[in-house]
């Protein structure tokens, strides 16, 4: 009886360890799949950025490039880090603080024409605020010059 109990307890411990191990494996897989790297427009244009994965791209919205379709929600604009420009498309409603000259971060994929198709556009809710990645990207582009 006591042997039985001990083996049951052992079984429980083994099950817990296996459960946690399984959760870790699945977790790491999900983590790997959903990890998104950030790239600057320079990195997109020089080919550093992958064109198969979902990535994040950030920069300033170039003044005078925002084009809105009148019959749909499609918006096109250019994004720059001061050195390079990436064309971006987004279909949907932009955040309140989206405007020309503003720093934004977009999430999406590059299509075969090297246009970045965003499925989410983020602008920070403080007009003096610059997303840190964008600030770094601008600075890096500045130093390259």
């Amino acid at each position, binding site marked *: 009886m006591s042997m039985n*109990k001990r083996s*049951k*307890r052992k079984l*429980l411990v083994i099950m*817990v360890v296996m*459960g*946690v191990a399984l*959760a870790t494996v*699945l*977790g790491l897989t*999900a*983590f790997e*799949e*959903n*990890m*998104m*790297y*950030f790239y600057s427009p320079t990195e997109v244009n020089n080919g550093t950025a992958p064109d198969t994965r*979902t990535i*994040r791209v950030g920069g300033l919205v170039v003044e005078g490039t925002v084009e*809105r379709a*009148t*019959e*749909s*929600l499609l918006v096109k604009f250019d994004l720059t880090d001061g050195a390079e420009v990436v064309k971006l498309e987004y*279909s*949907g*409603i*932009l955040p*309140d*603080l989206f405007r020309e000259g503003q720093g934004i*971060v977009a999430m999406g994929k590059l299509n075969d024409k090297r246009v970045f198709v965003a499925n989410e556009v983020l602008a*920070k*809710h*403080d*007009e*003096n*605020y610059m*997303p*840190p*990645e964008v600030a*770094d990207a601008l600075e890096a582009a500045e130093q390259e010059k």
Partner: protein
Amino acid sequence: MIPEIGLFALIIAFGIAIVQGVVPLVGAARNDATMISLARPAAWAQLLFVSIAYAALTHAFVVHDFSVLYVSRHSNLVQPLMYRISGVWGSHEGSMLLWALILSIWTTAVAIYSRGLPAALMARVLAVMGLISVGFYAFMLWTSNPFERIFPAPADGNALNPLLQDPGLAFHPPMLYMGYVGFSVAFAFAVAALLGGKLDATWARWSRPWTTVAWSFLTFGIALGSWWAYNELGWGGWWFWDPVENASFMPWLVGTALIHSLASTEKRGVFKSWTVLLAILAFSMSLLGTFIVRSGVLVSVHAFATDPSRGVFILIFLCIVIGSSLALYAWRSGSVVSTGRFTWFSRETALLLNNVILLTATTAVFVGTMYPLVVDALGIGKISVGRPYFDTMFALVSMPLILLLGIGPAMRWKSDNSQRIIKSLAIIFAASLSVGIMLPFVIDGVFNIATGLGLAGALWIAITTLQSLYHRIKTSSRLPLSFLGMILAHLGMAMFVAGVTMVMTYHQEKDVRLEPGATYELSGYEFKFIGVKNVDGPNYTAQEGHLEVRDQGEKIADLYPQKRAYSGMGSPMPMTEASVDTNMVRDLYAAMGEQLGDTAWSLRLYYKPMISWIWLGCLFMTVGGVLAVSDRRYRQKRS
């Protein structure tokens, strides 16, 4: 003059906190009654002075004293009184002051309600809390002085971030802080017990109600934040796995593990050192949350411009607190012996598994939140972790947790018979599983296993919980409030699971372009866009849309979403104000996008089935926690 009084009061509070943190500790070590007796009056004095400081800052907001830099940045002449008062904690400096005030309130509450405690233990608890206060005062005085003057004073101030001008958000930070800081009590008890070398079940009994209260505040605070984000951000979501949300969720998960582990320690004398470790961990998570939110290392809606010295300060503080308490734990916990014995099939085991699962969940959130920060800090790259990671992880850990939630409360302490449990739960299990799996088919004619499992889980929790209530009523004449609290909290969990499952499967979100007079059908509801007119608020102007919603031709709701522009020093700040028609079955939600062409607008239209169950579930958990601490046995023990 008054801001200087505030600053002066803050400095005095800092001094008192040092005394409160050092003298009683030395006294307890030397068994010096005079030094020990200093703890309580010090706690009171600290509360007095930090309150004066807090009142001084509030006064500066109310009377528009723009010579105070913080006020001039976060308030202006047209800001309504309510948002001038809540503006105090609207940004960094003031929210740190609020944190210190709340910590002092908790400290004083311990001083009042724990009169039955042995004097030395009490002195140590108050001293540990005093030391935490010291850290926060030093942080404010050296890096974030809320009373800093600006010369010359501007004629008008900037505005409070319009996001924060909402009643839901006004109360979100104080509730959250009550929770965060409340875990400092359990932490202080744990450290005091380790210092004194006496870790018995009494320790658990003393810290349990405090932990439950803190947990209730935290639950409520998080729910309030989620509800606010849903109504205010105009994205229609209720949880975004934003790092700041995660920062509040990690202490919640550990806190939940802690209240369950405390139950085992108090009732059965088991898991003593584990519980102590959890108490340390829960507060460490609160501090980590503060670090994440306040250091400016984050990319998030909540992250405002900050200066790096603050991050460094908090990081060092974090290392000191967590490092020293863990070192103390490693040194002292070896002597702790758990007295209770239990077999593998018992409620103790169930509660242990609960802890394992909750900590696995915490680890998942921790990795997803901290990994990007570490990678960035090391300069390897800039990454972020997408929502699907967190969703997958939680779907994964919630299944065993839900299963356990039905079994655990039905089990007896110490040892139970597996046959008995299987006999009493098998029918419920089979019934909730089959009904749950069938439900998606009933709803829309399509089988959906994941949804079915979610709904089955909700039913399983609800029915087993009600069964244990029924069983208790049948077998016992007394129905203690603590038991009712547990029942209510678990029912809240069932509602939460049901709500989340329904929203995730059946929600409909659509960004559409509509001309006035045009309609759009979403999930059987017809949204008709009537038009837009201008509306003026106290400190904003708005374009207000009007939509009529019809169900089978019958009008059931009018929605008036707004696009506001808040006035401030610079250009007006835009802000979306969604309009929601809520009932228990579904929410109909509309938010304004932007004007397209002459008359057309882009609009977000959402259909969210049973989303209110999510927050209602959290409310049940909160009330459950409050009921549990109202139990007679705590009141008797404390007075």
